């Protein structure tokens, strides 16, 4: 049993919705993340998938301690992050780093690559004393497959894929244990996306990193993840190993999501049955009572409106699913690689 490096317990993040300019009053809350629990094991990749508005990016911000949770805990190596002193918090921030989605806006255009990647050392001088920093940056450039001689160039002199490598090098600078990747390849072209995915895998093997890999592309997530959590409207609806989620999904939402992914093989056109969801995702300000997916679910019964289904292992299944009527269904015809 590998140890849990990060434990997330009943995490809640609500944003107030206000009305009025002078006399502001709170008229409701956007329930962006609403009771999320999971563990991240050392050295693994946990994929988090879901559609826009499901709360996956808010989750990444809370995990990074960029936002204070409304309730719940983030426990890093047995320590509740919320109770840490300022100094301990600063040391913690070294250990959890973020790779962002958009390589065009996440790099300051007025800083050279050397300054961008070396900036974390200014805040944490103990990692690299002043004289050694340029050397360290060059090592990092080499590690992510960039030419160390380009240390004095500016971001605009690089392509999208290369910029994402710069973003990865910057995240690696402080030798973190955990990297949160928030849609790291979705802005990249197909041929470049594969290069960056391979790089992330290589770095994990060499440096023993743990990844929380947040993405909307289910094929990318399957390729990189050991375990996968599926989110819908601020809650995890199903979590399990990559095989369990993709080959034996039990939650209707997971099934619908998987069935909608186009597979790059025209011969499967006829045999593929897409589960068509009607309507749009409800507003996170006033989510449906009981199960949040019930308004779009073909299995919904009265009980779904009354009781919130817990995320638990149900009879006939091997992994937790938050559905009263969880049932295995094969969606993805599996081909051995």
């Amino acid at each position, binding site marked *: 049993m590998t140890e849990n490096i990060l434990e997330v317990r009943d995490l809640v993040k609500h944003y107030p919705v206000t009305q009025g300019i002078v006399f502001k009053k709170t008229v409701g809350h956007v329930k962006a993340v609403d009771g999320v629990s999971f563990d991240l094991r050392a050295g693994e990749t946990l994929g988090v998938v879901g559609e826009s508005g499901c709360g996956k990016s808010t989750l990444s911000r809370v995990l990074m301690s960029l936002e204070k949770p409304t309730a719940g805990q983030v426990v890093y190596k047995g320590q509740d992050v919320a109770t840490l002193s300022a100094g301990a918090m600063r040391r913690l921030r070294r250990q959890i780093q973020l790779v962002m989605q958009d390589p065009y806006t996440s790099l300051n255009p007025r800083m050279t690559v050397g300054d961008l990647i070396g900036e974390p050392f200014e805040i944490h001088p103990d990692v690299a004393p002043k004289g050694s920093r340029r050397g360290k940056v060059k090592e990092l450039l080499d590690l992510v497959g960039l030419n160390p001689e380009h240390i004095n160039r500016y971001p605009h002199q690089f392509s999208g894929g290369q910029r994402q490598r710069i973003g990865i090098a910057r995240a690696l600078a402080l030798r973190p244990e955990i990297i949160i990747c928030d849609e790291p390849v979705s802005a990249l072209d197909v041929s470049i996306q594969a290069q960056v995915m391979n790089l992330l895998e290589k770095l994990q093997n060499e440096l023993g990193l743990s990844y929380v890999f947040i993405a909307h592309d289910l094929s990318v997530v399957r390729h990189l993840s050991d375990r996968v959590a599926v989110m819908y409207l601020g809650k995890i609806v199903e979590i399990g190993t990559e095989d369990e989620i993709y080959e034996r999904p039990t939650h209707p939402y997971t099934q619908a999501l998987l069935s909608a992914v186009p597979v790059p093989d025209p*011969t499967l056109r006829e045999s593929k049955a897409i589960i068509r969801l009607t309507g749009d995702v409800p507003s996170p300000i006033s989510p449906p009572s009981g199960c949040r997916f019930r308004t779009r679910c073909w299995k919904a019964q009265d009980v779904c409106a009354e009781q919130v289904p817990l995320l638990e292992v149900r009879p006939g299944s091997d992994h937790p699913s938050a559905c009263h009527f969880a049932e295995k269904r094969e969606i993805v015809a599996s081909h051995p690689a």
Partner: protein
Amino acid sequence: MSEQSAPGAGGAGRPSGRLLEVDDLRVEFRTQDGVAKVINGVTYHVDAGETLAVLGESGSGKSVTAQTVMGILDMPPGFVTGGQVRFHGKDMLTMSAEERRRIRGEGIAMIFQDSLSALNPVFTVGFQIAEQFRIRRGTSRAEAKKRAIEMLDQVKIPNAKGRFSNYPHQFSGGMRQRAMIAMSLALDPEVLIADEPTTALDVTVQAQIMDLLGELQRERQMGLILITHDLGVVADVADRIAVMYAGRIVEEADVYDLYAKPAHPYTLGLLDSIPRMDEKGQQLRTIKGLPPNLMNIPPGCPFNPRCPMAQPVCREKVPPLLQIGAGRASACHFAEELVNRD
């Protein structure tokens, strides 16, 4: 294979055959930094009732080709330096502006990726659809409204009557894309160009929109040009595929042939580099390097610096797009070897 000569049930009175032909089109952008050769001899066609997918990565020229066809290319900096765009055999590039305007909307219509910026935020969605009937068909205000509501209904917007007077920001992303489809189909075009119509949407919504497009296309026997980078979407809906790289078509084939036996190393590289949800892959194979700078395209085959099969001849001679069998063509000196290998 895709010569569908008999018009479908819904396509009454539509002439069959070649609707739109792009022939050796060349476009360059003249900027302060130099001349970017964005399109370097693109040839493709679309027939009634057929779906042609134009597949390519950013900068391959797939959208610029479509913009030139529609006559919405920014000129300058864009300049058409050669070739023809024929609609029913007539070259659109030499037509009068008035003739072209008549084709736009009624002959060829287009939908865009970003529906939020493609719709005018200060007019209601209904007004933007109804406007076309009033200007192009001379209908009364009431009649135009009635027809616009019919269009919203056809693209399955619930409560079309009530939604008529909503503004674009009151629609969700999927609904906006539906509204844009309604707008583009209002004048019953023969060819629809869809430029990345689902790229900004979630997968479940993407499936809904692609279903809708396919349904409307079958009903109306439209020629559909689907511009995309998504190999999954293409596999689901295309009849034929044209793969673009550095402003050229490098391969054209029937969808089944292309996925089974690609005839260009670039296509092969693309297919190898996508993770597949139905396979637990090993390490992904990648295409090394970067697409060329369009201001400085390498001599010979533009793909040669990234190609694992490159030989000296590839650095000297530009391979022309040649037929290599029924309905397929490849612009690779070694296309035959590639197709015949196991």
